[in-house]
């Protein structure tokens, strides 16, 4: 059994004097995720490394799964750690490891030894050669290939000797909580949870706003969005979800404005409301799942029209993604199955047969003048009646 996991991270290593902030956030986030796993774990920093040490029994797959949701981790290496009790014991540990981890011994390998402890009696080159020989003796089917080995056997001579040969990819990115907070416009669809995930991956904490329109949308549709937020929270940490009742605004727009402009005008008000909450809670930008040309309201002309109402920057991480690519990410982060549950969301209920695809901003603004009488009051009402749900990853 592996006694520890060596956590590799890339970008944090180049962050200069702020580096400790990033490393501390990483350690904290690893600890949070490991709380859901049975077992005793000790997360510590050592010379520019983060180790997760284990004590007693644990489930390997569960630990790896929990770690693979911590942004900032590039690689997870299960490590065997032994006291330095002489070369023979070290060689035996390597042989035992290979025997257990690789049932089929027909592979090429290379030994890569490093000494952090320079007083070790052998040089790295000598260790490489001597261990390589022992492996060939024990498993004659194996072969050495120093250029393109199938298995790279790492031996690090530190206070303890570390042996590892696999690196499980982590999610990459930056530790959550190191980049400020963003307000995600979350619908029940496939795109917005992915957008939230992608921005969160850069260390951004998330808050979210969802618009529902009872009776046109159902309680189940709302529950679906809460479930999606919880799924994203597994990666991004707890998400404060604002659930806005949008029915009255939507019906008012329906009554007063040309129907083919309904979606655009509606989206402008959604942005305004989301921005209101964003500012209230100190978010530094809005996040949407828009992708150029995916639907009528996501043409460049439409994006121009919706963008115009916001003062905060709008982050659109999926802007150049094809649907297939978005689906692939949503499957990876396990939001896809929830997203495709067939509940109507408020963007589609009144959608016109032929909505404008190239809205003219001036014309839209002119249409909106018809809303002057009641829109401010409805806006305030929507804000005031908003329900808040804290969504934690489960």
């Amino acid at each position, binding site marked *: 059994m592996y006694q520890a996991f060596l956590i590799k991270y890339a970008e944090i290593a180049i962050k200069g004097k702020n580096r400790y902030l990033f490393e501390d956030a990483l350690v904290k986030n690893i600890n949070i995720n490991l709380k859901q796993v049975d077992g005793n774990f000790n997360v510590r920093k050592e010379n520019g490394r983060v180790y997760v040490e284990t004590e007693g029994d644990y489930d390997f797959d569960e630990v790896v799964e929990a770690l693979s949701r911590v942004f900032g981790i590039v690689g997870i290496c299960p490590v065997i750690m032994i006291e330095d009790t002489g070369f023979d014991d070290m060689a035996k540990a390597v042989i035992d490891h290979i025997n257990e981890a690789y049932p089929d011994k027909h592979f090429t390998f290379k030994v890569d030894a490093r000494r952090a402890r320079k007083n070790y009696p052998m040089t790295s080159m000598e260790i490489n050669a001597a261990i390589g020989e022992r492996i060939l003796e024990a498993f004659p089917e194996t072969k050495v290939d120093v250029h393109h080995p199938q298995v790279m056997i790492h031996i690090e001579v530190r206070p303890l000797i570390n042996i590892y040969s696999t690196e499980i990819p982590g999610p990459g990115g930056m530790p959550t909580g190191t980049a400020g907070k963003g307000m995600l416009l979350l619908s029940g669809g496939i795109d917005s949870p992915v957008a939230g995930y992608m921005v969160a991956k850069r260390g951004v904490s998330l808050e979210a706003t969802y618009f529902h329109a*009872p*009776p*046109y*949308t*159902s*309680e*189940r549709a709302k529950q679906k969005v809460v479930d999606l937020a919880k799924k994203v929270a597994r990666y991004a940490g707890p998400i404060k979800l604002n659930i806005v009742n949008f029915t009255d605004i939507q*019906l008012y727009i*329906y*009554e007063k404005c040309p*129907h083919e402009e309904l979606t655009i005008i509606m989206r402008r008000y959604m942005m305004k409301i989301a921005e209101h909450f964003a500012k209230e809670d100190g978010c530094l930008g809005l996040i949407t799942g828009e992708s150029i040309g995916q639907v009528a309201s996501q043409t460049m002309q439409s994006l121009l029209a919706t963008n115009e109402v916001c003062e905060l920057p709008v982050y659109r991480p999926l802007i150049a993604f094809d649907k297939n690519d978005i689906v692939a990410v949503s499957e990876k982060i396990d939001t896809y199955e929830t997203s495709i549950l*067939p*509940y*109507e969301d408020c963007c589609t*209920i*009144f*959608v*016109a*047969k032929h909505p404008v695809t190239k809205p003219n901003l001036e014309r839209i603004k002119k249409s909106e003048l018809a809303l002057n009488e009641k829109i401010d009051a409805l806006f305030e009402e929507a804000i005031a009646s908003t329900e808040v749900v804290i969504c934690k990853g489960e």
Partner: protein
Amino acid sequence: MECYLDNSATTKCSQAATEKMVELLTKEFGNPSSMHEMGMIAENEVKAAAEKIASTLKVQPKEIYFTSGGTESNNLAILGVADAAKRRGMHVITSMIEHPSVANPFHVLEERGYEVTYLPVDEQGHITLSDLQNVIRDDTILVSLMYINNEIGAIEPISEIGNWLKANYPEVVFHVDAIQAYGKILIRPKKEGIDLLSVSGHKIHGPKGSGFLYIRDKIKIHPIIFGGGQQKGMRSGTENVPAIAGLGVAAQEIYEQFDEKIAHLYELRDYFISEVSKIDGVRVNGAADHSNAPHIVSVSTKGVRAEVLLHALEDKHIYVSAGSACSSNKPAVSATLKAIGLPNDLLDATVRFSFSVHTTKEELDYALSQMNQLIPMLQKYTRH
């Protein structure tokens, strides 16, 4: 006021059935197969339930086989008979308006190489004997029809068809899905030529997870679940004694003072139909006489999508179903509504009201008054 008008989806479990179940879950919790006394007590409970049910149908208790509910009963009947009779022929007949728990086993049979003929219905959802006469063949082995349609409430001419089959095609097995009918009409399998009859417990104030299949003595049918050989090997698995006993109690209760209950339901239904039809843009699907069930009213509202009306009513604590959404929440176009020729724009504008013996006129008045307010408002905002 809370107003549950979705009794064709499920019903409230009766007090007596619930009490019986609690007793069997907590006190007399033995396994009928156990050889000791507790096992015998449990076995007797199962027998008693079978007797109660058999007496409502005037059949023998040994012809009652307990299942996990209507879906399993239908699966057992269709797949079990098709398998047992395949050497005689591979042609089977059903209708275009069956519940998915019948329609889908037939799709499985199609995949297995059987030929399935689907009978059409008229505008009120009725199957006709002459349509069956036109398609039945010498290699037909099974006819499976529902007694009452779950979406619009049409009562099918089961006796007429069953008796004709017995007289002309005695070898053909006649299965009837009576899940909406049991407890709403008197069913006499022996007089109606019915060989197999599916019933679900939770539609008649019994527990969910209970049901039975009546299998007429001497009918050849293969099991679809294999195991310890319980229920003469027809349905292996430890009997769900509490649910079975609860079902027994509910079955007995539902047929007490039966005529009065049905008269009450028809009175409510007729009142509801006459009042709801007065609302602009509303039409009632199916027949308004006694060729339609006493407890189901299908209502289409021009310009108001079913889901929207459903949620608007839900907001007023009135609970109904959209289209056929009895088993799933997937918005699929209803086969029944299509089969009766409902115009396209009403297919997704149809909700089902379904009553129980507990439904009152006050509840209906409340629902009607809410609909009178909501529907004109909702009709203002439609998709273009």
